[in-house]
């Protein structure tokens, strides 16, 4: 009896192995996706491929930009729903296998277009040449949208061949054409604040720079200051770097990092609204503010 069970087990194992081998071949050949689990907020090559494949199947109609945003998230969940996978919004191994099986990914087409900054699409069943937009993204792009999209199911047979045969020599890491920004801010806000932080605190330690950025944001939130980043920064006499033009120096990466940290919720100052350098402060009034702490050369106060 025991033996019979064992035999059965061996048989089943062998069958599974035999069945699995042909399935896994295409992946090894083209080495689609890296082994990582892709989740919301991720950036990079895998996301570009994920978006392209989802678009190929007609789940994703947004821009292929290499950032896993909400559009990609819902597309992925719909895909998981249609293909009977657990719906978790994570592109794990099983989901990726299914995707690779069901869709083609023309890496070269996508990456060329991304490199050239063109508008393009990557739908299955439409000639790729028709999916390239004009060199500088114009409004005509809408015309290029494939009409009469077929449903993913009907496309499956033709897609069965496996993943992107044309996928050529592996390219260097593709830079995504979009970026994550903290909620409520734009890249230009980040840039402007980085300018201010660099002008005000470039000699300070990193925390000191985060602190200056945090003070700007605390002021935006405060009722006694203007309600926008630019309003706060350009308030007359508010920042010496603005008054003497140092704000227009080109900020380094560290200043930008500091600004991002502050926008993402780090406030090393304990809700300070003012800061000053005790060696150069020109106003007696600032000394009367309740002081919270000192970071680098700056004293932070309420």
């Amino acid at each position, binding site marked *: 009896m025991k033996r019979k069970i064992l035999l059965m087990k061996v048989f089943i194992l062998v069958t599974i192995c035999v069945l699995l081998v042909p399935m896994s071949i295409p992946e090894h050949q083209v080495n689609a996706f*890296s082994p*990582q*689990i*892709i*989740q919301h*907020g*991720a*950036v990079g090559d895998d996301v570009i491929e994920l978006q392209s494949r989802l678009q190929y199947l007609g789940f994703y109609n*947004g821009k292929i*930009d290499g*950032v896993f945003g*909400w*559009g990609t*998230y*819902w597309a992925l*969940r719909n895909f998981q729903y249609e293909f009977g996978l657990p719906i978790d919004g*994570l592109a794990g191994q099983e989901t990726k296998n299914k995707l690779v099986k069901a869709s083609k990914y023309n890496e070269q087409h996508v990456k060329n277009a991304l490199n050239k900054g063109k508008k393009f699409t990557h739908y299955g069943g439409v000639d790729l040449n028709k999916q390239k937009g004009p060199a500088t993204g114009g409004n005509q792009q809408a015309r290029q949208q494939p009409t009469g999209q077929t449903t993913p199911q009907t496309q499956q047979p033709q897609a069965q061949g496996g993943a992107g045969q044309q996928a050529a020599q592996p390219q260097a890491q593709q830079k*995504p*054409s*979009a*970026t*994550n920004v*903290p909620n409520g801010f*734009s*890249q230009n806000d980040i840039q402007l604040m980085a300018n201010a932080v660099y002008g005000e605190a470039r000699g300070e*330690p*990193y*925390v000191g720079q*985060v602190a200056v950025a945090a003070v700007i944001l605390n002021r935006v*939130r*405060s*009722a*006694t*200051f*203007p*309600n926008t980043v630019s*309003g*706060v920064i350009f308030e*007359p*006499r*508010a920042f010496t770097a603005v008054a003497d033009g140092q704000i227009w120096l080109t900020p380094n990466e560290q200043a930008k990092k500091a600004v*991002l*940290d502050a926008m*993402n*919720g*780090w*406030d*090393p100052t*304990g*809700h300070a609204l003012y800061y000053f350098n005790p060696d150069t402060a*020109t*106003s007696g*009034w600032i000394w009367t*503010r*309740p*002081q919270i*702490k*000192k970071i680098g050369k700056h*004293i932070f*106060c309420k």
Partner: protein
Amino acid sequence: MLRGILIGILTLGVAGTAFWGYQEHREKNAVLLNAENSYQRAFHDLTYQVDLLNDKIGTTLAMNSRESLSPALAEVWKITSEAHSDVGQLPLTLLPFNKTEEFLAKIGDFSYRAAVRDLGDEPLSDKEYKTLKGLYKQSAEIQKELRTVQHMVLEKNLRWMDVELALASEKAPNDNTIIDGFQTVEKTVESYGETDFGPTSIGLQKQDDNYKYLKGKTISEREAIKIAKKYAGANGNVDVRVTENGKGSNYGFFSVSLLNKKTKNESNMDITKKGGYPIWFINDRDVKKQSISLNDATNQAIKFLRDNGFENLDLFESNQYDNIGVFTFVTNENDVRIYPDAINVKVALDNGKIIGLSAEEYLKSHHQREIPKAKMAKGEAKDKLNPNVKVMEDRVAVIVNDLNEEVLCYEFLGVLGDDTYRIFINAESGIEEKVEKLRNAEPLYEDVV
């Protein structure tokens, strides 16, 4: 002969310099005048807006019908916001003018709340009416003061540039008429003290709970260092600096800075004196490459939080910035998300180490709460949504609403067009408490152009 040529050249040189100097002088004056004019505009605008504000508050007092009251209050709100922006354009930062600005903001807040509420269902209460009367009187006083200043400015041809200079130079006693005028305004407002704006304007008072929910004994400096070392994963070879909070802080904390002698890598951290909780932690390290996925980093963050006593957390947001993963977690209590209990973690994607933590909000709001039972069924709440929104996900959550109260809500994640929205419906009253449009990734402009 030679002398003649020399004299000629010199004369030319002198004449040239004089001409150049005159040009420069003219340009400088033009620029100064420009700056002066924009200050003047902001100032006269401000006095005009305050005039208008006083008038408008006066008219609302005489109104009775909802149809006219709501727009009038909305107008008051608009005027305060414009006056506020005018103040922001004047070089008053070095002058204590906060009280006046705060006062303006409070009037705005009060009128906004009254304006958006359905005055047919819930007319202005007697108390609010009294507040409005008080505001009318106070704004009249401010108006009078400002008009006096304005009169002086016009009569004596006073220049804001001089104000700037007077404010900037420490030595000069502040005897400028404009400064005096604004100081009087500030004093007048200060004397109003806490005008009672009623319960509707708590939203402005920033919640500053001073970490009242924290438990535990006061820690010593040495314990603070120990905690910081644990967070930074530092062993042995570090320079340690500890400072206490300044006198102006509402709560006690230690600031610990650890400098790794070998790598020159610095970690900074603030720790509450009471109980030794981490307020924030930052390790400034350049992360040059990505070798783990965002998902792995999430798991690292969860593990790190659990190891440090932060439990029952849900991943709320995850974002990758270059080679750094930033995560926001919120408490999950019996399948109810508690949004005020938010905690941020930063993970380096090269080795999965935690390089940042911000637990301020969490520490300030986390406590054992009584979560009320929802009075509405989920379906009922869903009926309150805009029918065009396609709901994709839902759950129960506690959020802080506009009035700064914690309320139990149904949370719906829905799609409308290409955009995703997070909508909170109050589980008791069915009010739409909050609707947020969730941000998509922003295209990089260099690539678009």
